[in-house]
């Protein structure tokens, strides 16, 4: 493994230690070492956003803990859910009396453990609402949307939920607004190369040179089509077309676009992809309101990219543009 690591079993632990050493002014651990919260948590009277998931996706999840974003994150091992106990520790540390929104990706372990944590939190008198990102159109067909996985589009949901909470919305209202965004959000990815879970020691999948896989999941789950690696323009067209086929839209609609790198793909390539996606959307009669390009949700050193589309209205636009600051993401 060409990795800068020590004991693979201590990878998540040591990563977390590094993050806390580097960003101790912004982040702290709560009762549990895997429960990371804003240094100033709880913010009294504000709805708190709690999240979490497996490691290996930075800046997801812990990188979105900050002002105008999430209040805390439970940190699992690589590609593995954190425990309900860890989630509960986050919940208790971030609750400012106005309730907690659980916002996370739709995966089995996370769903079960956040479910359990919600029950435990309710037992301690904390009001919890839950919203799962399920933006990956490749992970289940239309009509089976609840089975879809969450991928990079969850960034938009953090941004929106965090901004709602920051301006003082109630728990029900934060959830409703974020749900409206989720209903208008679609993502799809393409993988060009594999990644290795440190403790497993071998690549999760093999993708021969010259091949790509459309729709592959962020842990290497099988996608919808494997084929010859095509030109960036053709790939961008295929991804954008898959999103537009799924997302109800009309000419004149405005969208925010996220072109996300999975890890090894350089920013330069993401911009080559964005260039075409922009043109394709314009040809479809849509206006790109704002473009977000970079690494927002990675899969270790996987090569590839995903595109997310969020159809926005004036309120969502304002929430997306609201200031936010974490050690990994700043918007002023």
């Amino acid at each position, binding site marked *: 493994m060409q990795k800068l690591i020590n004991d693979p079993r201590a990878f998540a632990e040591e990563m977390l230690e590094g993050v806390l050493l580097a960003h101790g002014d912004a982040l702290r651990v709560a009762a549990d070492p895997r429960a990371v919260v804003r240094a100033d948590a709880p913010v009294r009277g504000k709805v708190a956003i709690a999240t979490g998931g497996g490691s290996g996706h930075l800046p997801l999840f812990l990188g979105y803990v900050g002002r105008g974003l999430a209040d805390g994150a439970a940190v699992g091992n690589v590609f593995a*859910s954190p425990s309900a106990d*860890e989630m509960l520790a986050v919940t208790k540390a971030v609750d400012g009396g106005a309730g907690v929104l659980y916002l996370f990706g739709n995966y089995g372990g996370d769903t079960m453990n956040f479910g359990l944590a919600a029950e435990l939190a309710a037992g301690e008198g904390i009001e919890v609402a839950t919203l799962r990102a399920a933006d990956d159109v490749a992970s*289940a067909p239309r009509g089976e949307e609840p089975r879809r996985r969450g991928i990079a589009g969850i960034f938009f949901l953090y941004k929106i939920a965090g901004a709602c909470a920051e301006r003082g919305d109630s728990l029900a209202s934060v959830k409703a607004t974020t749900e409206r965004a989720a209903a208008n959000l679609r993502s799809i990815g393409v993988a060009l190369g594999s990644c290795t*879970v440190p403790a497993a020691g071998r690549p999760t999948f093999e993708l021969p040179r010259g091949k790509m896989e459309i729709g592959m999941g962020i842990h290497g789950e*099988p996608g919808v089509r494997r084929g010859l690696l095509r030109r960036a323009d053709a790939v961008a067209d295929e991804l954008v077309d898959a999103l537009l086929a799924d997302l109800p839209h009309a000419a004149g609609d405005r969208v925010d676009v996220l072109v996300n790198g999975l890890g090894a793909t350089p920013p330069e390539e993401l911009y080559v992809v964005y260039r075409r996606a922009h043109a394709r959307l314009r040809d479809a009669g849509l206006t790109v309101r704002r473009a977000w390009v970079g690494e927002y949700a990675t899969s270790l050193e996987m090569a590839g990219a995903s595109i997310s589309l969020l159809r926005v209205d004036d309120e969502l636009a304002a929430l997306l543009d609201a200031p936010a600051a974490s050690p990994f993401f700043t918007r002023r």
Partner: protein
Amino acid sequence: MSALAEGVAAVAARVRASADELNRLDAVAGDGDLGVTMTIAASAVDALVPSLANEPLAAVLVTCGGALARRAPSTGGTLLASALLRAGRRAAELRALDGAAAAELLEAAAAAIAERGGAQPGSKTILDALVPAARAARAAAATSTDLATVLADAADAARHGAEATKMMRPRFGRAGWLADRSTGHEDAGARLAAIVLAAIRDAVATA
């Protein structure tokens, strides 16, 4: 150390030895980490073995389930934790640890996983090993009270069930999707169940 605690350690060792195989199978349609997670689970359980020395089965199962829930909270780990916790609660109600008891516990485990995960047999999950194992145990218990005999049938059924998952379409697949690529490969969770049941059978046989 009690025979029970020794058995727990033996099962943990068997799981740990299968880590590579479990990673490989999980990589086919999942993220290739079931062996990693189960190694962590095995270590967590190992650490508890000394404290289990004089505990009854119910307490052992609940303790192990709790360890999994806390230390191995992946999808498979969480489901297994639920199974152990439910079986532990059921064990507390049983009078004897005989063949029928084994069937009871396996049924409880399978029910917990089905409830928690919302899946049915046939969708290429751990249930495809566990449900046949419970059924075989129930059938064996009808003719024998011997724990070892019943466990042998259950372990066999689990192994066959796991093998049968080779030809199943995975839980998140649909016609034409690449999920079909898992055809010919066992489900990792089903394989894990087969490994665990074989290890339990062997531990009981040698106890």
